[in-house]
């Protein structure tokens, strides 16, 4: 397949990127797999214990004194959410929204529904926000990812595109959208987005991690397409800077196999296996 001119030039850019530039890109990606992910089977941790801190007790007293204090309900809901006491958090967020149906209040409620795996309720709440604030970028992104989790690919893509259109420099929505395209084998679209992310100067740790992972994803797509030589060089460079990136080790191994460099590939697979063995069990089904 002929290389798309844009991709060819961008790939060349990556290959010629100085070590310093790559290092900057990867600065916040030193821990294994620290990039934000759209991996299948996310497994939220088990419910944590009670969070009866003095702050919580004070908020409970406030609410007991004034059950219609929307701000207190919101504040308590947020603390309980952070403590992963989602059911009670939902009750307080719902009450807060009844009292004062603000966008932020609804957004907190939707996030709490999502965390409690009440996906239908989360979806409905996000849509309620969009009914009054159709350009609410964070809602569009969260709803896009939620739709994907619920198996609604087209809706997911639609919401993420809307998120990008509300703010053209929307790295994270682009990153999520690229992951969907890659997952479904739409490599042209995925590569296009990943390459654009690479060219945007990151403004947060999350964006930096997304940029670094986009480099990996571009190389992984090239490996899947059988274009291993360039991909191998990018991955080798990435691994110099992030030695414990398990996926990069595995994908470089695949590239090396395609290049008939079997012994080097074997070493990459062994390194990858070693890194995988260090993972804790987080779910019965993985």
């Amino acid at each position, binding site marked *: *397949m002929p290389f798309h001119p844009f991709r060819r030039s961008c790939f060349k850019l990556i290959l010629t990127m100085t070590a310093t530039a790559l290092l900057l890109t990867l600065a916040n990606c030193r821990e294994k797999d620290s990039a934000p992910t759209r991996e*299948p*089977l996310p*497994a*939220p*941790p*088990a419910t944590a214990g009670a969070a009866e801190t003095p702050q919580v007790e004070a908020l409970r007293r406030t609410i007991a004194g004034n059950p219609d204090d929307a701000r207190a309900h919101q504040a308590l809901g947020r603390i309980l959410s952070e403590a992963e006491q989602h059911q009670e958090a939902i009750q307080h967020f719902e009450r807060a929204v009844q009292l004062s149906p603000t966008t932020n209040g609804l957004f907190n409620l939707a996030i709490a529904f999502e965390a409690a*795996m*009440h*996906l239908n*309720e989360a*979806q409905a709440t996000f849509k309620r926000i969009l009914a009054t604030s159709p350009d609410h970028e964070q809602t569009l992104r969260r709803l896009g990812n939620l739709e994907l*989790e*619920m*198996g*609604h*690919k087209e809706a997911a893509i639609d919401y993420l*595109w809307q998120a990008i*259109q509300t703010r053209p*420099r*929307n790295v994270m929505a*682009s990153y999520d959208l690229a992951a969907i395209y*890659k*997952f479904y*084998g*739409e*490599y*042209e*679209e995925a590569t*296009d*987005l990943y390459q*654009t992310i690479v*060219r*945007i*100067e990151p403004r947060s740790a999350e964006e930096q991690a997304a940029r670094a992972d986009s480099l990996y994803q571009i190389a*992984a797509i090239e490996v*899947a397409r*059988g274009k291993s030589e360039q991909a191998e060089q990018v991955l080798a460079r990435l691994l110099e800077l992030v030695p414990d990136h*398990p*996926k990069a*080790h*595995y*994908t470089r191994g*695949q590239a090396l*196999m*395609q290049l008939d460099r*079997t012994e080097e*590939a*074997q070493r990459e*697979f*062994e390194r*990858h*296996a070693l890194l995988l063995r260090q993972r*804790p*069990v*987080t*779910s*019965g*089904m*993985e």
Partner: protein
Amino acid sequence: MSALPSRQRTSGIHAAGRTFAALLLLMASPMPWARGQDKPAGHPKIMFRDVLSEAGITYHNVSGGTGNDKAWLTATIGCGVAWIDYDLDGDMDLYLINGSTHDRQPGKGEPNLLYRNDGDGRFTDVTAQAGVGDRSWGFGVAVGDVDNDGDPDLYITNLEANVLFRNNGDGTFSDITASAGVAGTGWGSSSAFFDMDGDGDLDLYVGNYIDFSTLSVPRKGTPEADKPYCQFMGIPSVCGPRGLTPAQDILYRNNGDGTFTDVTREAGVFLEIPRYALGVVATDLDMDGDMDIYVANDSVSNSLWKNNGDGTFTDTGMISMTALSADGKPQAGMGTDAADFDGDGWIDLVVTNFSHDLNTIYKSVEGRFFLDQSSVIGMGPTAMSLSWGVSFQDFDRDGDLDLFIANGHTYPWVDESGMGTSFRQRDHLFINQGGRFKLFSPPVDDGLAQVNSSRGAAFADFDNDGDVDIVVTTMDDSAVLLRNDSTLPGHWLMVQLTGTVSNRDAVGARVILSAGGSSQLRERKGGGSFVSSSDPRLYFGLGDAVQVDKLEIFWPSGQKQVIHDVPVDQILKVTEPRDNPAAPSP
């Protein structure tokens, strides 16, 4: 600073992608009309009808209770099914495995059932007279002529001891498990007969899942189950498999005298840390003339046991890149199958996986290694399904291999989760379009439109009408017998092989069919799908070819046999010549 790409611009790239896909279609299809010639006059109209009731099959599955009564993983895996011509009357009979519940004594579960195909669309329950109503908590079944006496025997994997029934040739079977020495240990899942050492008899690979006891594994919903491995996406679930002790797979060598020897250690397939095996297929992936074993493992890396040709095996899963997904992740392997779906002459692999993940298609690169091509080949649209039984078959008779996948979630409680998946799901038929799979969308009255929690799946032309039918087991319910009632303009050929020097079942034989300027490869593999066993006859769809120009048969013994000018639309029986000097396989 670059602006992010607009949707309109990407739409343009969509068009480029379509062009590329069209090019792929032209390059990869083995049939002549895909290379620019005209398609056959008629187009296939796919239709499957569930004929279970009219066939007289009353099997009802029991798998550890229903709904929230499912307290352990044992209640979520389900049962297999086998097509077996036990009475040698030329049509495929049906053997259905059944389970039990934990409040019953071992050996007091629901009996497995054998249904004789009466040849008129109906089946008769002959379990009692055949003596094959094993009442263990059954999971899997393999069919093979272990004593080379010309009739097929049955091997059943159980939660308790496994069972080997020898076919007596008079409509009855004898339990020879003890004398044969194949009771096994651990919770048996899929198994496969194959000739590991080329000595002309069938050896046996038994996949084992978990070293399971209700005394040691927490029951769902109890305080003891407050562990990470008893959760699924934050929801309390049955515990495992991760966190539980995996059971060791077993390799038995057939001694040729009615007994088997456990050669797991000496053959090199013993694992210090076993791997929760669920799917097994025996196939010659590197085409070096001996059969390798591919094992789909749940939640850990898959295994590819390369046959070294000296009675030993080496796990080449990692170096062959068939152990993990493209991103180097272990997946939850359930079923597996092996076939040359893209017509390049090399055997590819498919592995079915858990929901929120892709079923994996590993495309062979000349047998040296494999590339995970799942996304680009078309597995994405079914990522929310949880998949089990699987097979590459030419359902539409057009000369390339399509793909059937049986689906159903492990947990009934996902129905309340809003996770975008459900306990009962549609099974999926993918139509091969030039090496890519397109999901078939069945009309509402099609048998494929129903939703069940499917598990085992086996494939056969049970009515001998020249197309591939399907039987599927479902959790806590009746089975589904999908008769292929498609309108298919293409021709077909079925090849029934009988070994003489090779093992009688000819497991390991390869057949290359040439017709209309193109060729197709089929292999008489061992095992495949999930805990199930399919028609041993090799099925070829021929499209509009009206004659088979050449049939090349590569027998496991090394002999090559060539048959020219074979008429189509028939079941061709081929016996391995005894007096033909051995010719090396290519």
